[in-house]
């Protein structure tokens, strides 16, 4: 007999339990499906929320036009007035405010916003806005990493370096990056430079501190082992501290890149607004909220997508990790033989 269904069900939410591939996939889908269902319920089930009435037949109410959304009470009052004068009643269906478009409208917008040209010739296509945003993030993050990662490693490995830089960085990290907007524009002009600077400011200080903390967690005994093997300080750093922490540093960078995305919208509002933010503001001005929602969703999709890609690469980059997958790793490794199967070896 199999173990009882009750036990297996309970074990799905066991503390520190492991998930089989099937429940893993199902839960992944569910985590998106549940919010989507909630959104659909609010959009399609007439008695959930729907505070407005969308007028389909204005009847004898003068100020109604077809397609207009009015407050439910206002609609009833207008109809009551018309009924008193024995006129034709207005007809309408329950509706949500325009700023909450239904899933199918957003889905349509997702498609059409890529397919329809901008209304004015100087405006950008959605994909152009998106590429512009990604470029801003990439540049800001790259510049931050080029300085922040080496500095963080130095701080993590050498206490004197940490003492010299970290107190100030800790202080600076609390200054909100957007507050530097005006300053950045004054110094760097109104185009892309100040936006990249905001991403940089938002990332850099966290980055140094996070990297330093990860490097500090390197097993001291590994460094001691290297010392007893005659490694000079330079090699202790480059051949022990760095490789010992590099896999964790890679994961840190994924998290930090996620934070960089959260600074994007603020950054793009500075100077002349640009990128996906410009697109969103423009569509909001046209009251095309389906396009607005579509653009917001796209930011999420691009962010999640890039993180998934980085995670996939990460599992192949560090072949010594227990969760490593073969693949990319083989490119970075000289193999002189097949690994031996280790069953029962003492």
């Amino acid at each position: 007999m199999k173990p009882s269904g009750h036990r297996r069900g309970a074990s799905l939410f066991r503390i520190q339990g492991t998930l089989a591939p099937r429940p893993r996939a199902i839960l992944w889908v569910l985590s998106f499906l549940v919010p989507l269902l909630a959104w659909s319920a609010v959009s399609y089930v007439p008695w959930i929320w729907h505070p407005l009435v969308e007028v389909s037949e204005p009847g004898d109410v003068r100020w109604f036009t077809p397609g207009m959304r009015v407050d439910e009470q206002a609609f009833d009052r207008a109809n009551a007035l018309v009924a008193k004068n024995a006129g034709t009643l207005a007809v309408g269906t329950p509706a949500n405010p325009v700023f909450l478009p239904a899933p199918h409208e957003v889905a349509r917008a997702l498609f059409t916003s890529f397919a329809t040209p901008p209304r004015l010739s100087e405006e950008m296509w959605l994909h152009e806005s998106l590429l512009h945003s990604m470029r801003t993030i990439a540049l800001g993050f790259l510049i931050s990493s080029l300085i922040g990662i080496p500095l963080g490693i130095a701080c993590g490995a050498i206490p004197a370096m940490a003492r010299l830089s970290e107190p100030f960085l800790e202080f600076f990290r609390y200054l909100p990056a957007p507050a530097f907007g005006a300053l950045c524009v004054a110094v760097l002009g109104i185009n892309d430079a100040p936006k990249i600077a905001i991403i940089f400011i938002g990332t850099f200080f966290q980055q140094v501190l996070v990297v330093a903390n990860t490097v500090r967690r390197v097993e001291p005994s590994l460094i001691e082992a290297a010392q007893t093997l005659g490694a000079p300080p330079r090699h202790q750093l480059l051949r022990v501290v760095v490789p010992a922490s590099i896999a964790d540093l890679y994961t840190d960078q994924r998290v930090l890149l996620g934070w960089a995305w959260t600074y994007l919208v603020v950054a793009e509002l500075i100077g002349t607004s640009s990128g996906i933010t410009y697109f969103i503001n423009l569509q909001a001005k046209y009251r095309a909220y389906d396009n607005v929602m579509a653009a917001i969703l796209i930011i999420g999709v691009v962010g999640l997508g890039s993180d998934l890609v980085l995670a996939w690469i990460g599992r192949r980059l560090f072949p010594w990790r227990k969760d490593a997958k073969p693949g990319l790793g083989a490119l970075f490794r000289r193999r002189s033989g097949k690994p031996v199967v280790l069953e029962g070896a003492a």
Partner: protein
Amino acid sequence: MTDRPAPALPVADEATAARLDRMRGREKVLEVKSLGKTFESSQGPVEALRDVSFSVHRREFLCIVGASGCGKSTLVRLLAGLEESTSGEILVDGRPVDGPGRDRGMVFQGYTLFPWLTVVRNVAFGLEMSGMGRGAADSEAREWIDLVGLRGFEDNYPHQLSGGMKQRVAIARSLAARPRVLLMDEPFGALDAQTRAQMQSHLLQIWKNVDITIVFITHDLDEAVYLSDRILVLDPRPGRVREHLEVPVPRPRSFEQIVSSAFQGTRARLDHLIHPPQPVHDIERIPMVRFTVVGDEVE
């Protein structure tokens, strides 16, 4: 408390006495002169070692034993140069020790292999640090891997190895750097009894085939008698040398010797030095609540 005198050390047979004589005649590789170490902790200073002196001859196998917390690890870390002494002096081949160096290899209880390197790259690490090129270092590393019996595992990562195998890699890695002295701090402490016994015989074989002097920390007295030429007994709080005894058990060693009188006599003396007889607690008389109503027949 009964204050019996310690059982006397059995007398070595002629061959063993001659071997120990020859050992004493060889040059001193390691000399420790009135070494002291006091840690500054938040609860005030902790004196871990006081006036420890001894020397180790070339090709000697010295074990250091003592109760837990008596300063064995501190001593071996001082020898490795990983910790600075408060007083006294350590000489290797007559030169004072100042920080860690490749003349003193170290094998830790936790394996401390580099997880990002394969077995062969781990073993080649020390060789590369001495300026050897990668190719040459790898091929020499393979010879050391053969020596510790791990041929076929060169390209595995440490996490794919068992505890005993990891410790073999650690030994090969230390030996490959050609140290004068190999310091080992309870290297087999985390292994199960069977693997441990294997590793002990294996270590003796390696020691026989490689020109190396070993300082081996353990709290397992059988292990100490089985492995060593001499045993240094430390007293706790602060750690001091209690006694210095030469093991009268003939070589080559085998596990059959454990029942021999030379082995058991040495063992009994060590036991007495480290665990002086304590008043016996009468466990029967400790009042205890009963938490069971079934199984009254258990003793």
